[in-house]
């Protein structure tokens, strides 16, 4: 909880990091924050003066996948340097203390760093019945409201904290809501994904650590550096989409040759995330490179969006008839398909449409 005594520059030098090592660290940090290489000198200057922030991590209705993603991130020396530098004062999965001692650590960190600490939340908050999820006898809502009161900002990690996620999926039995549904008087940064890319989680923390400010956000409260472009626009298979070359099944010629997965339900065009460049598993691959379409996990209500294998603009069984009407009426097929898609999606959200093995075999 000694949060302001040393700068990151001092801490690195104390650990024997040379200037070349520091430059390498800054280069990797810029890459991790998705900032242009020209920002490296600014990052170096800022990191020299960066102070040690206190972080309180709250876990509500979640599966711990977000913490797994973060703790297995593929750049340990970089993450270690950052996490050695932040003061992670409360994280009930990772901390040694439990029970009253754990809650005492949270309260002590809140008082010692009033108005200056960061709160990280993973998981959604149940409003239906406080008993659905409690910690130390307190409802998630109580814990969140009490902890956030003295925070400088909140980082909602994962789709559950950002948008309600899987617990909020129809019929939402617990009345799950997102952090931003509760916290309206503090900055909330959404880092969605199921789970989020570890580099994105640390990139957001590194941005705050480096510059002492919050990154620029989009209309869903997501950092633009990572969520600024769609999966589709950054996809290496995009040229096949432009040429009209699609896989129609998971084992046809198109699939084997790595053509576009749009017709197999890829949600890349409506999903904003950094998977296409950041990749997963030590930069090995990502879903599309592995031959499966994007499921849109960084978007609100992705679970209820009408089936992972339904093409965005080609709803099963309806497109041919509707498109032919559209052509007859002189209306652009793309426009009508987009309209059909929106209706299909809305209907699916209402009815919680299921995709069966038979549905998949029809393709």
């Amino acid at each position, binding site marked *: 909880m000694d949060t302001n005594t040393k700068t990151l520059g001092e801490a690195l030098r104390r650990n024997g*990091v*040379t*200037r*070349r*090592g520091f*430059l*390498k*660290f800054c*280069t*990797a940090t*810029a*890459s*991790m924050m*998705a900032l*242009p*290489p*020209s920002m*490296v000198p600014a990052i170096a200057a800022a990191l020299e003066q960066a102070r040690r922030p206190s972080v309180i991590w709250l876990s509500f209705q979640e599966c711990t996948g977000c913490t797994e993603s973060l703790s297995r991130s*593929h*750049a*340990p*020396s*970089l993450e270690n340097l950052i996490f050695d530098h932040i003061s992670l004062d409360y994280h009930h999965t990772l901390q040694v203390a439990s029970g009253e001692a754990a809650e005492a650590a949270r309260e002590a960190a809140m008082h010692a760093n009033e108005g200056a600490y960061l709160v990280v939340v993973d998981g959604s908050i149940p409003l239906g019945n406080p008993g659905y999820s409690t910690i130390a006898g307190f409802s998630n809502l109580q814990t969140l409201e009490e902890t956030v009161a003295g925070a400088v900002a909140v980082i909602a990690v994962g789709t559950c904290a950002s948008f309600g996620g899987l617990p909020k999926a129809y019929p939402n039995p617990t009345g799950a809501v997102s952090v931003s549904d509760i916290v309206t008087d503090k900055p909330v940064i959404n880092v969605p994904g199921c789970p989020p890319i570890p580099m994105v989680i640390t990139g957001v923390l590194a941005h705050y650590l480096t510059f002492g400010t919050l990154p620029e956000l989009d209309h869903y409260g997501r950092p633009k550096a990572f969520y600024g472009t769609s999966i589709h626009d*950054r*996809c*290496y*298979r995009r*040229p*096949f989409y432009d*040429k009209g070359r699609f896989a129609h099944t998971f084992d046809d010629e198109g699939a*084997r*040759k*790595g053509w576009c997965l749009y017709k197999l339900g890829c949600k890349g065009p409506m999903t904003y995330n950094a998977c*296409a*460049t*950041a990749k997963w598993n*030590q*930069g090995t691959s990502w879903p599309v*490179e592995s031959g499966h379409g994007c499921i849109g996990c960084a978007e609100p209500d992705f679970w209820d969006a009408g089936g992972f294998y339904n093409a965005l603009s080609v709803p099963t069984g309806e497109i041919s008839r509707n498109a032919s009407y559209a052509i007859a009426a002189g209306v652009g097929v793309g426009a009508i398909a987009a309209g059909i898609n929106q209706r299909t999606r809305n209907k699916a959200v209402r009815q919680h449409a299921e995709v069966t093995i038979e549905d998949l075999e029809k393709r």
Partner: protein
Amino acid sequence: MNALKSIPVLVEAPATRDFCYQNTLPLLHEISHALRRLQQEQLPTTIDLNAIPFGPGDEQRLLEFLGRGEVSAHLEALGNSSVWESGYPGIWFIEHRNESGERVAFQMEITTLPAILATHPDDIAESLSSLQKALENPSLGHRIGD
């Protein structure tokens, strides 16, 4: 991981003519423009290769196309780093790895010499101070045999 290799999956490598379908060719044009800037305006350029949406094999094709030149360097700081000039002088690759050997950054610099290879002025000052202190040590002559 060995068990994975026993799964009979055949990945069809893109044909050579597919070179221009992916992101390698546009990147080569960008490098060409950067090289022209370096030649005419002495302006260096850095490209973060981790931020380029490479498909399978794209990075390898880029490396093979540019080849390796006559200069390479090895750096040990927070893990190993490799720096090498491509077969096209002025185009450098800088690959940073962490202490576990995993890549944390991969950049291309279009420049006369990558910044990380140059000695920092503060290091030169510290170097001079250390050397002078060593020379003032009376046992130095004995230790080096004079």
